């Protein structure tokens, strides 16, 4: 129910801040940090506390800057110069910047911001980004207006703008993750659907734990979730509308249905269906219910994922004797195998950029999260543990979230993220056990 409010109040208005003095022409080329596969020396940035335009905004002013810094530093591409090393703060958002003070502490980029709480209760957040050494603004100042409950989203929007301006790439901070929250001992685990901000904040539950639920997947517009539930006694796929919190079974196929995934246009679901022991892949039109069988071999075919253009499907199959990854046309038919390393490969997910597939690889008792190109080349294993599984792509295709289960009788899963370079592995800061993450697109 809570989600209803949050989802429906995404009323962040975005306007350019009038700042003619800063929209100066670039003379030295824009400040840029290039995201490469090699080791990156993080760019030093400074983000002093935002300016509180009124007393009601004082706490927010500090919190906003903290979240912006947390996002940017968390990306592994930036490092923050500590507040106590900063020579001067920003006390007036519109006053000229004393660039020498920031240059002296070697801040390459400076983020300034202000926040005011309006009589309506809404908050307005402004920010500007500066290239300290060139002494110029990078892009126009922006203003976000929204409800107080959305203050973290506004901080993420600021961080997204900074990330995009400094890397030249799309960002991923104003996004959410649906996942399975788990409680209880290993032999009596209770599972429920949950949703959080990408950084673990604003945890909320979408179902209770009376029925086993698995593997939720966000729709491309972030408004719906497909997931598997045992509420009828056998696994079946349900569609949950996050605005109304209504859910319904999809399809009318006999058998056990699981492993759903949306098409890029949100109109179709891919699922796998087990009938008399044989598991194959089907597509289901979510409006008409029309079902199309896409594979029909006696082997296991499951875990399908569409290409971003919707024309192809990557999936896993044991048709060659062990679990491997294949690509076929969205209409089914001939498939070509793309995984050829040592070990078993599963859970393929096509990247939003279209260039890579993320997967789980199992070899010699270890589980790995990896990426490779669509022809199987340039395979990179990014992680290694007793059990790493189920990658999901950040909206910009730069980061993977997955879950890692620890070994033993007390073994339990937690959510982790890692860059596709293999750097910046870290646990997502959310309470409790978590598995099966699905990352949304950037929120609107």
């Amino acid at each position, binding site marked *: 129910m809570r989600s209803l409010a949050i989802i429906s109040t995404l009323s962040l208005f975005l306007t350019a801040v009038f700042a003619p003095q800063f929209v100066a022409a670039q003379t030295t080329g824009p400040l840029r940090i290039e995201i490469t596969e090699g080791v990156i020396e993080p760019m030093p940035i400074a983000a002093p506390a935002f300016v509180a335009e009124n007393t009601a905004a004082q706490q927010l002013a500090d919190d906003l800057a903290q979240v912006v810094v947390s996002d940017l530093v968390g990306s592994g591409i930036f490092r923050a110069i500590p507040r106590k090393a900063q020579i001067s703060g920003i006390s007036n958002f519109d006053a000229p910047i004393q660039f020498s003070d920031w240059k002296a502490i070697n801040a390459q980029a400076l983020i300034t911001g202000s926040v005011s709480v309006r009589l309506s209760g809404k908050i307005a957040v402004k920010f500007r980004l500066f290239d300290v050494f060139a002494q110029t603004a990078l892009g126009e100042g922006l203003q976000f207006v929204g409800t107080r409950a959305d203050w973290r989203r506004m901080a993420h929007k600021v961080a997204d703008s900074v990330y995009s301006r400094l890397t030249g790439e799309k960002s991923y901070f104003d996004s959410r993750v649906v996942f399975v929250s788990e409680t209880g001992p290993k032999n009596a685990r209770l599972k429920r659907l949950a949703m959080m901000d990408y950084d673990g904040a604003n945890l909320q539950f979408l179902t209770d734990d009376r029925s086993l639920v698995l593997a939720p997947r966000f729709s491309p517009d972030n408004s719906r979730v497909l997931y598997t539930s045992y509420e009828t006694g056998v696994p079946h796929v349900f569609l949950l509308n996050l605005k109304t919190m209504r859910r319904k079974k999809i399809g009318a196929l006999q058998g*056990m249905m699981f492993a759903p995934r949306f098409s890029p246009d949100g109109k179709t679901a891919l699922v796998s269906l087990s009938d008399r022991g*044989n598991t194959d892949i089907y597509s289901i039109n979510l409006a008409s219910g029309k079902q199309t069988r896409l594979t029909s071999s006696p082997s296991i075919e499951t875990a399908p994922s569409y290409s971003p253009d919707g024309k192809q499907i990557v999936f896993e199959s044991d048709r060659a004797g062990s679990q491997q990854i294949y690509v076929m046309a969205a209409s089914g038919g001939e498939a070509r195998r793309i995984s050829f390393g040592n070990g078993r490969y599963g859970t393929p997910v096509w990247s939003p950029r279209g260039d890579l597939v993320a997967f789980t690889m199992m070899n010699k008792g270890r589980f790995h999260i990896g990426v490779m190109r669509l022809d199987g080349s340039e395979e990179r294993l990014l992680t290694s543990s007793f059990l790493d599984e189920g990658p999901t792509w950040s909206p910009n295709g730069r980061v993977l979230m997955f879950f890692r289960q620890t070994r033993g009788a007390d073994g339990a899963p937690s959510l982790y993220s890692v860059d596709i370079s293999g750097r910046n592995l870290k646990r997502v800061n959310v309470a409790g056990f978590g598995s099966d993450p699905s990352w949304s697109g950037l929120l609107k």
Partner: protein
Amino acid sequence: MNLKLAGVLTASLLALAACSSSIPNSGANGSTFKANSPEYFATAIGDRVLFALDQTTLTAGARSVLDGQAAWMTQNTAYSALIEGHADERGTRAYNLALGARRASAVETYLVNKGVADSRLSTVTYGKERPIAVCSNESCWSQNRRAVTVLSAGNI
């Protein structure tokens, strides 16, 4: 309604299995249960068969247990059975669901071939979601790679 009943039975059978402190499919003699009781089915005949890693073929031992199950079900026609397919934790979630479905189906097919009416049988896969042994080594994994025949009174 039937599902609820089956759930209750499963819990009690598992509790019994735990009490027996031996592998439940061993078909130990000396059962004190009446031969037409579900408890006898679970303990003396064995309510489950185990599988090798990533395999769904029935071993000779498994077929022997299932022969006993089929004979019992042929004699005790008041019961239906839900066959649960399970996998160990050493596989990915969707694949393990598919694997569990195959294991359950392998048992169902065997029982039907031994004369049990398929209208009395149904299957469900739990993949790796319902381990009974929690350690992370083969002694536990081998117990979790199982298909369990869960009886319920009446037709499905």
